[in-house]
C-alpha cells in the first residue's frame, strides 16, 4: 500500500486539534507554499496552560489517537476515534477560495472562485478535467480539523479574576471569529481547566457563566470546565467524557460536509470552471465525473463518521460510475488522466475492500479484489497498453501486496498465527455457494507470495524488453513514440529505468526478496515450516541472482541441516536445496558444507547432473584450502549413499570368548561415480566391547567387475589407541588413559553399488548387554578429512548375514547389532570324591569334596555348603588343614557359608570333608556346594561354580518281632515269709516288686537292607518304658551276635531275647505294657574296627503281664543215661502248667484224646483245682509212633465253672496253631543234637 500516495488509503477518523496544552510550536501540515501564503491563521493570544495536570491531560488525549488502531470493529471500548494533533496556540487553515493565476486579466464579470483542491480552480493540479486526488483527502485528514479543542486555565486568584476572565472572553471570541472568517466550518470547543477539585469549582459558577454568555458557547457540547484537583484516573475519565462529547460534534461536522456533497450531486449539472480551459483539449470534467467526485466525498465523510456501511455503499457507487461507460471509458489511454483514473479506481477499491474487511466480509472482499483485478485487466487490454508487459505485472504484484497489507491492518482473529486454518472461513451468507478456493481469505503470507510470483513475471517481461527501448530518451528518439504506447507505466518506471541498457535499473530480485521474506515470516509464525522452507528456497534463488552468497548460507544452511524433506524422502527438493547451497558454499569457501553436500549428492536417489565429476576427493577443487580441514558429519543431518550396519552372528556370547560379527558397508552411489576409498572405519560400542578400527590397506585392486557383495575376513589385533585422528578429542579430556582398541587392516575401497562385508571375531569382555552404537567412516584425501558417523539405532528390522561362499543372505534376527554377553563360565570344578554306594542312617557320613581350579590363574575360593531336605542332620566341614566348622541347623536345611579354602593354584585342587552327623532315620536330601571364587588377576569379577548332589540315606535294617509266653521259674509261694501286703510301706519302690512275674520270649528277625555285608557287633533289646506298674528286664538268651558276625544283603537273621515282666503288686491285676527297642550295633566291613554304628529299631508296644488264667504246654525229652543205646524209644514229657493269677478258686477239666501218632501215659480225663495265685502242672509221657515229625497231642483244658476251653500255649520247642499245640519228634539220627538243644530249654522251663 506504500505504493499509493500517502494518505490516500488511510482510514479516516475525525481530525482534532488540541490547542493550549503544549508550548512547542508545531509545524503546520500545509506544505504547499502557494496555499500557505493564502492560509488563514487562527491564533490565540493567551499562553498555553503549563501545569502538571495539563501535561497529564495532553498525554491522556494523545494516547487516544486512533490512527493506528486495527481496521476492524473488534475494539468497541471507546465510543470515539480521533486523529489528534496537539498544537501550541496557532494553526493554519487552508484557503477556501483559490487565487486566480497571476497573469490572468480580470474579466469584467466577477468570477466564481472555488476551492484550490477542486478541478475548477485553474491553480489546481486537477484542472480542468481531473477527478479527485489525495490532496483533497489530506485537506480533511490533516489540515482542516473537525474540532478545535482549546484549553484555557481559570485563575483562582480573586484579584486577577476579572482581568483574566476578560482576556479569556476576548481570546475565545477572537479565535471563533477567525475560524468563522476562514469559511471552514470547524467547531471550537473550549475546555477551561481549573485548579480546584470538582466539589469546590462551584464557587466560580458565576464567572464561568459570564464567560459562556459573552462567548456564546454551549455548556453541553462546546464549553467544558475541568477541575484538575483529582486523582489521575478520575482525570482520565473526565477527559474521556469530554472527548466523547466532542466526537458527537465531530460526527455532526462531517455529516454536514457529507450532506453538502450530496446536495451538490443532487443539483445534476457539471459546474463550470472558474476560467474555461484554453490549453489542451479544453475538456472539462463531465457530470458523471463530478458524480464520482461527489460520491467519493460522501463515502469519505461517512468513513470519518465511522459509518462503514454507508461508506461502502458510496464507494461502490463512485466505483461503478467511474468504471462505467462515461468516465474511464472516455479517457484516452495515452492521457495521464487515464492513469489518474486508474489510481482513483484502485483507491476506491482498496477503500471499499477495507470496509468489507472491516465488517468481516472477507470472502466478499476477495471477490471484490478479484473483480477489480479482472475489470482493470479487461480495461487495460482494451483501452490501455495491454497486460503482456512488465507494467501490468508490476501492478498485479502491487495489487496482491495491497491485500496482504489490508489483512495485516485488519487483524482477523481467524488469521492470527494461533489459528488452525490458513484461511478464513466464508461469511455465513456465502458459505452455501460454490466458492473459488481462493475466495476464502488466506493469510497475508499467501498474498505476499503471490505478489512475489507476479514480480518475477515482471522481471521476466522486463528482461525481454528490446535493446532499443531500454536506452534513455535522450539517446534515441526514434523508438520514443512506439515505446510510449507499448509499455504500461502505471505505478512503475519507464522501460529505460526498469531495465536500462546502461547502469542498474529496478532491483527486481530485491523486490521479490522483500515479498518472499514477508511471506516466509508469516508462514513461520504459523508453523507452516515446509512452506517457509519452500519460500526460503525461492529466496535463495534470488540471492543467487544477486550473488549474495552469505545470505544463501544463512538462509539455507540451517534448513539443509535439518530438513523435513530429508526425513520424508523428498529427493527432488533436497536436491534443489543442495545444489544451490553448494554453489554458495563454494563462493563463501565453507568447506565442510561443500564436502558434506557432495557426500550427500553422491546418492543414486538424486537425479544425475550431467557433467558433474561425482568424485568426493575433488570436492574442494577450486576452493582455497589451508591445511586439511576436518569435517565431521553424521547421518542425523545428512543422508548418505553409504549405509552401514553391524551384525553379531549370535544373540548371546560368553565373556572371555569371541563372537563373529559382520560390518557391512553398502554404497548407493551413482554407477559411474568414482569408487570411494575409505581411510578407516571405526565401530563404537555401548557396553563392554572395545572399539574396532579397520584401516585401509591398499592391497588388492578392485575393478568394476568385482562382485556386488564382497565378504572378507579381517583379523583383529589389540592395539593401543594411537589417537592420531582423535587429537581433538584427547586434548579435551586431557590425560585420558590410553585405551585398547581392536585393529584390523583391509582394503576399504567401496565401489558404487557394492556391499562390502568385513567379517571379524569380536572378543567379548564383561557380562551384560552390549551393542554397536555407531559406525564412523573416515576419508582422507589430500585436501580434507571427512568423518561420517552413522548411528545404529534400534529397529525391529531383521539383519542380514552374508556368507562368504555364496552371496545368499540369511536373515538372522531383529536388532542384530545387540549382543548379550553372558557371565564368564566358571572353570572351577567341584566334585565329590570317594563316595560310597550307599549311605545309611545312624552312621556318620563323610563326604569328600575336591575343588579343582582349571583357570589359568590362581583363584581365591570360598565354599558354601547347604543341605536341604526334611529333618536334615547338622554337619561339619573339615578343610584340608583339619580345621572344622560346624553348620547351622535349621528344620529344613542346614548350611555353612563362606568356608575359606584359600588360594587354589592354577590346575591344582584342594580338598575338604563334609562330615554329616548320623541321621536318625532314612532321609532324602540335597547337597548344594557352591565354590565362589575370583581370580587373583581380576579381583573384581566374582565367579561362581556350583554343584548339586542328591543324597538318599536309608536304614540299613528292618526287623520283625514275636513275643511268646514262657514258663517262668519263679512263682510266689504261699509259704514265703515275706508278706507282700506289708512290704510297700517299708521297702524301696524299686525293690518292692512282689507281683507275679511272667516270662516271655522275644524273637526278633532283622533283615539287612544294606547293599553290602555289614558286621554286626552287638544286638540288644532295651526297655524304653513300661506302663501299668510293672517292671521288665530283658536278657539275651544266646550269644547270637558276636564280633565279626556279618550279615549279607537281603538276608534275615533271628535273635531271641528273654523278657521277664513283674507287676509291682500282687493285687494289681491291670495289664501292663512295655515299650522296647531293638538295638543293632554294626559297622561296615571297610570301616575301621573301632567304629560302632548303632541302629535302634523301636518295637511295637507289648502286653507283658496278664491276669487271666493260662495254660502253658512244655515239652521235654527223655534223655537216656549215658551209655544207653541211643536207639531206644524216644520218650517225651508233656508238661501242662495251668497258672491262675486271679484271686478265684478255679477248677479245670483236662481230657487227653488218644492219637495214632503216639501213645501216652497219664490221666485221660482228670479235674484239676487251682487255688488263687497258684499254678499246677500235669505231666504226660508220650511215646511217639512216628519219627521226625510233628505230633499233635489233643488235650482239652476246660474251665469247669465257666465251661470255657482254654487255649494251650506252646513254649520252647513247640509250636502251636489254631487247633492246639504241636510237639516235635526228632528223627533218630538227629536225636542227639536235638535232644541236647531241647533239653537245655526244657531245664530252664522247669
Amino acid at each position: 500500500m506504500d505504493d499509493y500516495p500517502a494518505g490516500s488509503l488511510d482510514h479516516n477518523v475525525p481530525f482534532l486539534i488540541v490547542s493550549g496544552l503544549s508550548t512547542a510550536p508545531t509545524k503546520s501540515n500545509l506544505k504547499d507554499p502557494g496555499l500557505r501564503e493564502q492560509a488563514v491563521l487562527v491564533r490565540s493570544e493567551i499562553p498555553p496552560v503549563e501545569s502538571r495536570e495539563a501535561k497529564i491531560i495532553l498525554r491522556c488525549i494523545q494516547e487516544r489517537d486512533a490512527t493506528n488502531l486495527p481496521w476492524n470493529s473488534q475494539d468497541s471500548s471507546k465510543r470515539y476515534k480521533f486523529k489528534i494533533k496537539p498544537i501550541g496556540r496557532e494553526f493554519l487553515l487552508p484557503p477556501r477560495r483559490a487565487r486566480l493565476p497571476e497573469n490572468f486579466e480580470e474579466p469584467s464579470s466577477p468570477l466564481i472562485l472555488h476551492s484550490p483542491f477542486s478541478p475548477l480552480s485553474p491553480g489546481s493540479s486537477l484542472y480542468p478535467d481531473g477527478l479527485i486526488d489525495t490532496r483533497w483527502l489530506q485537506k480533511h485528514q490533516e489540515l482542516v480539523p473537525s474540532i478545535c479543542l482549546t484549553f484555557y486555565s481559570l485563575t483562582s486568584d480573586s484579584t486577577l479574576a476579572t482581568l483574566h476572565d476578560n482576556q479569556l472572553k476576548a481570546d475565545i471570541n477572537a479565535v471563533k471569529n477567525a475560524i468563522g472568517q476562514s469559511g471552514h466550518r470547524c467547531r471550537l470547543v473550549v475546555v477551561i481547566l481549573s485548579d480546584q477539585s470538582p466539589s469546590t469549582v462551584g464557587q466560580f459558577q458565576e464567572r464561568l457563566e459570564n464567560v459562556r454568555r459573552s462567548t456564546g458557547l454551549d455548556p453541553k457540547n462546546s464549553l467544558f470546565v475541568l477541575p484538575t484537583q483529582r486523582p489521575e484516573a478520575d482525570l482520565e475519565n473526565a477527559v474521556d467524557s469530554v472527548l466523547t462529547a466532542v466526537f458527537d460534534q465531530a460526527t455532526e461536522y462531517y455529516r454536514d460536509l457529507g450532506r453538502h456533497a450530496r446536495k451538490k450531486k443532487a443539483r445534476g449539472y457539471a459546474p463550470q470552471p472558474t476560467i474555461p480551459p484554453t490549453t489542451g483539449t479544453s475538456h472539462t470534467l463531465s457530470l458523471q465525473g463530478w458524480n464520482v467526485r461527489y460520491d467519493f466525498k460522501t463515502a469519505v465523510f461517512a468513513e470519518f463518521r465511522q459509518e462503514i456501511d454507508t461508506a461502502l455503499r458510496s464507494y461502490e457507487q463512485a466505483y461503478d460510475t467511474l468504471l462505467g461507460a462515461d468516465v474511464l471509458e472516455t479517457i484516452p489511454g495515452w492521457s495521464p488522466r487515464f492513469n489518474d483514473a486508474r489510481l482513483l479506481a484502485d483507491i476506491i477499491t482498496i477503500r471499499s475492500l477495507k470496509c468489507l474487511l472491516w465488517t468481516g466480509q472477507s470472502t466478499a472482499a476477495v471477490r471484490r479484489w478479484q473483480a477489480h483485478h479482472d475489470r482493470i485487466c479487461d480495461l487495460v487490454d482494451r483501452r490501455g497498453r495491454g497486460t503482456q508487459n512488465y507494467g501490468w505485472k508490476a501492478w498485479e504484484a502491487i495489487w496482491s501486496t495491497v491485500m496482504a497489507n489490508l489483512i495485516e491492518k485488519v487483524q482477523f482473529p481467524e488469521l492470527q498465527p494461533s489459528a488452525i486454518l490458513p484461511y478464513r472461513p466464508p461469511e455465513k451468507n456465502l458459505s452455501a455457494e460454490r466458492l473459488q478456493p481462493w475466495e476464502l481469505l488466506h493469510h497475508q503470507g499467501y498474498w505476499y507470495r503471490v505478489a512475489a510470483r507476479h514480480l518475477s513475471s515482471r522481471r521476466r517481461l522486463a528482461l525481454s524488453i528490446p535493446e532499443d527501448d531500454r536506452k534513455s530518451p535522450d539517446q534515441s528518439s526514434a523508438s520514443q513514440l512506439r515505446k510510449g504506447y507499448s509499455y504500461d507505466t502505471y505505478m512503475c518506471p519507464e522501460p529505460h529505468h526498469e531495465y536500462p541498457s546502461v547502469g542498474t535499473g529496478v532491483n527486481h530480485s530485491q523486490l521479490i526478496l522483500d515479498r518472499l521474506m514477508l511471506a516466509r515470516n508469516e508462514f513461520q509464525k504459523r508453523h507452516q515450516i515446509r512452506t517457509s522452507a519452500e519460500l526460503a528456497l525461492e529466496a535463495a534463488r534470488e540471492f543467487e541472482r544477486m550473488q549474495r552468497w552469505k545470505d544463501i548460507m544463512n538462509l539455507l544452511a540451517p534448513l539443509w541441516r535439518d530438513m523435513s524433506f530429508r526425513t520424508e524422502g523428498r529427493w527432488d527438493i533436497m536436491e534443489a536445496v543442495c545444489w544451490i547451497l553448494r554453489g554458495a558454499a563454494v563462493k563463501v569457501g565453507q568447506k565442510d558444507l561443500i564436502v558434506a553436500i557432495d557426500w550427500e549428492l553422491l546418492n543414486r536417489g538424486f537425479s544425475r547432473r550431467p557433467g558433474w565429476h561425482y568424485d568426493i576427493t575433488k570436492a574442494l577443487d577450486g576452493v582455497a584450502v589451508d591445511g586439511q580441514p576436518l569435517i565431521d558429519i553424521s547421518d542425523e543431518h545428512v543422508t548418505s549413499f553409504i549405509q552401514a550396519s553391524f551384525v553379531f552372528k549370535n544373540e548371546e556370547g560368553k565373556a572371555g570368548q569371541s563372537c563373529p560379527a559382520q560390518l557391512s558397508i553398502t554404497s548407493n552411489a551413482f554407477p559411474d561415480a568414482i569408487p570411494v576409498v575409505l581411510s578407516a572405519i571405526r565401530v563404537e560400542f555401548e557396553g563392554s566391547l572395545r572399539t574396532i578400527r579397520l584401516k585401509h590397506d591398499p592391497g588388492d585392486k578392485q575393478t568394476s567387475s568385482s562382485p556386488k557383495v564382497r565378504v572378507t575376513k579381517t583379523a583383529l589385533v589389540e592395539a593401543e589407541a594411537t589417537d592420531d585422528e582423535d587429537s581433538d578429542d584427547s586434548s579435551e579430556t586431557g590425560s585420558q588413559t590410553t585405551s585398547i582398541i581392536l585393529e584390523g587392516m583391509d582394503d576399504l575401497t567401496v565401489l558404487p553399488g557394492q556391499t562390502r562385508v568385513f567379517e571379524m571375531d569380536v572378543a567379548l569382555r564383561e557380562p551384560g548387554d552390549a551393542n554397536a552404537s555407531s559406525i564412523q567412516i573416515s576419508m582422507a584425501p589430500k585436501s580434507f578429512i571427512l568423518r561420517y558417523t552413522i548411528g545404529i539405532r534400534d529397529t525391529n528390522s531383521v539383519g542380514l548375514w552374508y556368507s562368504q561362499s555364496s552371496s545368499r543372505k540369511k536373515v538372522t534376527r531383529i536388532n542384530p547389532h545387540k549382543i548379550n554377553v553372558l557371565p564368564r563360565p566358571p572353570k572351577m570344578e567341584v566334585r565329590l570324591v570317594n563316595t560310597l554306594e550307599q549311605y545309611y542312617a545312624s552312621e556318620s557320613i563323610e563326604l569328600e569334596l575336591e575343588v579343582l581350579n582349571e583357570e589359568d590363574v590362581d583363584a581365591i575360593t570360598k565354599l558354601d555348603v547347604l543341605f536341604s531336605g526334611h529333618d536334615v542332620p547338622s554337619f561339619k566341614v573339615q578343610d584340608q588343614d583339619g580345621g572344622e566348622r560346624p553348620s547351622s541347623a535349621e528344620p529344613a536345611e542346614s548350611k555353612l557359608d563362606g568356608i575359606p579354602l584359600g588360594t587354589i593354584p592354577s590346575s591344582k585342587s584342594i580338598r575338604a570333608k563334609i562330615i554329616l552327623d548320623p541321621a536318625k532315620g532314612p532321609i532324602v536330601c540335597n547337597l548344594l556346594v557352591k565354590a565362589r571364587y575370583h581370580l587373583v588377576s581380576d579381583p573384581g569379577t566374582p565367579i561362581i561354580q556350583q554343584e548339586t548332589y542328591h543324597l538318599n540315606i536309608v536304614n540299613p535294617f528292618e526287623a520283625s518281632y514275636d513275643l511268646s509266653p514262657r514258663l517262668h521259674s519263679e512263682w510266689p509261694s504261699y509259704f514265703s515269709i515275706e508278706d507282700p501286703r506289708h512290704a510297700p510301706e517299708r521297702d524301696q519302690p524299686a525293690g518292692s516288686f512282689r507281683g507275679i512275674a511272667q516270662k516271655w520270649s522275644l524273637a526278633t528277625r532283622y533283615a539287612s537292607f544294606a547293599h553290602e555285608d555289614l558286621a554286626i557287633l552287638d544286638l540288644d533289646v532295651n526297655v524304653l518304658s513300661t506302663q501299668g506298674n510293672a517292671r521288665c528286664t530283658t536278657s539275651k538268651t544266646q550269644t547270637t551276635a558276636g564280633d565279626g558276625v556279618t550279615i549279607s544283603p537281603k538276608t534275615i537273621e533271628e535273635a531271641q531275647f528273654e523278657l521277664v515282666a513283674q507287676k509291682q503288686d500282687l493285687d494289681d491285676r491291670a495289664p501292663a505294657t512295655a515299650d522296647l527297642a531293638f538295638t543293632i550295633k554294626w559297622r561296615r566291613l571297610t570301616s575301621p574296627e573301632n567304629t560302632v554304628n548303632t541302629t535302634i529299631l523301636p518295637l511295637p508296644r507289648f502286653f507283658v503281664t496278664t491276669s487271666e488264667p493260662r495254660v502253658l504246654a512244655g515239652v521235654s525229652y527223655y534223655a537216656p543215661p549215658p551209655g544207653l543205646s541211643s536207639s531206644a524209644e524216644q520218650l517225651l514229657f508233656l508238661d501242662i502248667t495251668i497258672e491262675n493269677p486271679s484271686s478265684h478258686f478255679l477248677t479245670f477239666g483236662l481230657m487227653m484224646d488218644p492219637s495214632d501218632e503216639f501213645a501216652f501215659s497219664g490221666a485221660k480225663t482228670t479235674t484239676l483245682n487251682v487255688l488263687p495265685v497258684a499254678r499246677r502242672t500235669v505231666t504226660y509221657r508220650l511215646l511217639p509212633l512216628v519219627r521226625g515229625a510233628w505230633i499233635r497231642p489233643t488235650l482239652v483244658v476246660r474251665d469247669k465253672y465257666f465251661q470255657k476251653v482254654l487255649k494251650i500255649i506252646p513254649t520252647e520247642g513247640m509250636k502251636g496253631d489254631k487247633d492246639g499245640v504241636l510237639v516235635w519228634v526228632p528223627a533218630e539220627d538227629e536225636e542227639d543234637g536235638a535232644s541236647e538243644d531241647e533239653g537245655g530249654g526244657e531245664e530252664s522251663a522247669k
Partner: protein
Amino acid sequence: MATAIPSIACLGVIGRNNNPLHITIFPSYDVATNKRAPLRTPLQFSLLLSSTLDVFEARRRASSSTSQSGGSGGGGAGAAAPVVTGDFGLLHAVDERLAAYGFETNTGVKFVAVVDMRGRFAATGPGGTGFGAGGVGVGGGGGGLGGTGDRAMSLGVGAGVRGGVGLREQELRVVFRAMQTAYVRLLQNPFYDPDEHAPLMPAGGSGGGSGGKRITSRKFAEEMRRIGEGWAPGVTSL
C-alpha cells in the same frame, strides 16, 4: 466465450511418515498458447504437496487439543471441526488457480488433490477438442455456475476470462473415494508391503531415513491418471 472449469492438476499420495508415495501431474489448458501443459514444474508440485502437510499437521494438532476450538470462527465450524471422515476439505489455495484438497485415511496415508480452478475449458474453446469429461462437468455444475455468475455481476464484474465456476469441498470426495479404492486395491496385492513404504521406524536413522519406498505399481499409476483426467466438478462417480 469458453468457460474455464476446474480440473485436477496433481494427485499426490503421501505416506504415514509424510513421505511421498506417488505423484501424478496433469496438464492444464493454457489460453495463451492454446496447449495443455502442467502449470508448474514437478519440483514445484512436489513442494506444493509438501506444503499441504503443514496444514494437515495444524489441523490434527487443533483437533487433538480441543474439539470445541473449531467453533470459535463462527462460519468456520464446519471446515475446522475435528475430522471424522478423514476428509480435510480445502487445505489451502496457493493462488487464484491452484488449491489443494486433502483426505487422510485412518492409517495416516494422505491423499492430496491439487485442483487448477481454470485447468480446462468447456464449451467451444479453441482447445475444446477431446474434452468430453469437461462437458459432463459443466452439466453437473450448471446451477452453481449461474449463481456465482449473478453474484459476480452484482459486484460489477464481467465474468470475463475467469470462470465463475466455483467448487464445493464435497465435490472432491469422489476423487478421494476413488483414490482410496485404488489404494486399497494396491494394499490387497500380497507383494505390496505397506511397511516398506512407511517404516514404523525409519530404517537408516532419523536423519538418513529415506522415508520409505514409493509406489511403483503401474496399475495404481494408471488408476491415478484415470481419476485425475476423469474428474470435473459434478462428476459423481469415477
